[in-house]
């Protein structure tokens, strides 16, 4: 196999046109089908939010730091949705683009694999932001999130989008078939959704599970988003943000390497 060291290092000569061209392609494609996609971007997470906030919220009368369970769960659910969208974009959708030669065609223009991943990750971040805005507006209307908090959680939404947009390639670039991508949900998305502090504070987990839960890549996103939602910050929120940036920085070169190996033979 022809594995070169430069493939592991993101090239510095990134051409802006390549990145914006890839992003634009996704935006154009999205706008063609927005009526369908919007149901997943906004309606589905809002349904979950209302069901959990109003249903379970009635049963849970006390939760640390928040006035109500609905207020507690809102930032967690939004980050969960941001994760699903970013992850889906670069796992399932990117896999289809590999299989249908969309990337191959792009590579006949002066574009690099690094630029493809960057354009895709930016689009994944865009989708995270879309769902965050959509659900946050709804939460503000319901009175579960205040206006400034809704603006603030855009920051963790971008970070979650970057983490999971990058992570998706670790699956799509090595997937032998679409069934393999089921693992994205069974091994990553669903466990993270429930064990990253979105629905309940990590502190109520058994002592030995706690550190594992804190290391989960969605946990820092939920933590920072909740900081904005509840309006209280400490040093742990800074660590959480740094953790997400570091995760992205570590996974990105691996994503480039794996996608290169898949596309450039």
């Amino acid at each position, binding site marked *: 196999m022809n594995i070169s060291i430069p493939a592991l290092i993101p090239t510095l000569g990134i051409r802006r046109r390549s990145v914006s061209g890839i992003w634009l392609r996704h935006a154009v494609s999205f706008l*063609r089908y927005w009526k369908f996609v919007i149901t997943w971007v906004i309606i589905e997470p809002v349904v979950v939010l209302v069901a959990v906030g109003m249903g379970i919220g009635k049963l849970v009368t006390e939760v640390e730091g928040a006035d109500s369970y609905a207020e507690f769960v809102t930032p967690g659910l939004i980050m969960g949705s941001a994760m699903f969208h970013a992850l889906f974009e670069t796992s399932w959708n990117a896999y289809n683009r590999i299989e*249908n030669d969309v990337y191959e065609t792009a590579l006949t223009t002066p574009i690099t694999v690094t630029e493809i991943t960057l354009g895709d990750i930016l689009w994944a971040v865009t989708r995270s932001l879309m769902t965050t805005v959509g659900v946050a507006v709804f939460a503000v209307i319901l009175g579960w999130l205040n206006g400034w908090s809704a603006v603030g959680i855009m920051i963790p939404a971008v970070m979650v989008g970057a983490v999971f947009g990058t992570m998706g390639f670790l699956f799509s670039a090595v997937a032998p078939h679409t069934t393999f991508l089921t693992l994205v949900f069974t091994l990553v998305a669903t466990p993270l959704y429930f064990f990253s502090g979105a629905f309940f504070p990590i502190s109520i987990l058994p002592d030995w599970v706690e550190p594992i839960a804190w290391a989960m890549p969605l946990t820092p996103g939920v933590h920072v988003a909740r900081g904005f939602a509840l309006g209280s910050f400490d040093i742990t929120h800074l660590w959480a943000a740094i953790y997400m940036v570091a995760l992205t920085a570590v996974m990105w070169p691996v994503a480039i390497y794996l996608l290169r190996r898949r596309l*450039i033979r």
Partner: protein
Amino acid sequence: MTEDQHLETDFARNANGTVIEVENLHKDYGDIAAVDGITFSVNPGETYGLLGPNGAGKTTTMRLLSGLSPATSGSIAVAGIDVIKDNRAVRELMGVVTQHDGLDGGLTVFQNLFLYGFLAGLSRARAKERAHEVLEFFSLRDRSKANVYELSGGMKRRLAIARSMMTSPKVIVMDEPTTGLDPQSRNRVWEEMAVLKDSGVTILLSTHYMEEATILCDRLSIMDHGKILDEGTPDQMIERHAPKEVAQLRVVPAALRSVREYLTGRNISYREVGALVSVTGANGDRPDLSGLEGVEGVRTSYRAGNLEDVFLAITGRELRDG
């Protein structure tokens, strides 16, 4: 089509005047040599063909040339650019038609062209304008808003070629431009390629259709097992390797045995291709088949030697067998 499609004599070339220069090119996949030391060059405005069966290394050669795949060793120069060192630069100036159209199913016909042009570096306004121009040229204008999957195979292929024209390239590589197309669509693609050639575009194409190679190519190489076996104009190749005439016997199954016995008995070499028995005389002259006249179930006709015979003569195999 437009001004930049007209013949230009000042486009970039390699130091020795060629547009494409490939020297001792190798590409290994593990122990398999997909391309095994090929050397050829293409002159400005020329249409050059790589003719060979599936698995001959044609597609790999195309991918190496367009910078989609790194070479194991050897050198490639396109219009003065060292492809091995700077494959981004070569993708700036070369049009590429990949084997599987690679059309984007998430986009309309027009969006496929527009976004490709934008990605390749055209301004939005220019990409739109150019997309309209190529749609016009390829008579796809009324399909502009169609989904890609609604198009026929021939239209998809023509759209893929149209896409490679977005940047008005002076050099195009086309990997099997008409494989899988019906005869009508194939003719249409050939016509359009002829117009491109007329406008001064240098074309490198791969094919396993000898008819396509004969009609389109100024020069061609016969390729097999990653090697180039011989090179020349179609006429030169036929003169060099093919018999002047080949007898073709259409034989009903019941008569097949007696035909075989007749030919074997007279030491006449023959080969069976499907329902046809092809017979070549010694020295390429017309073989003596007088004994088969009047045999029921045998119809004899004669045709001139062609590239199919060339391939057989050089490799000992049928082109279409793969």
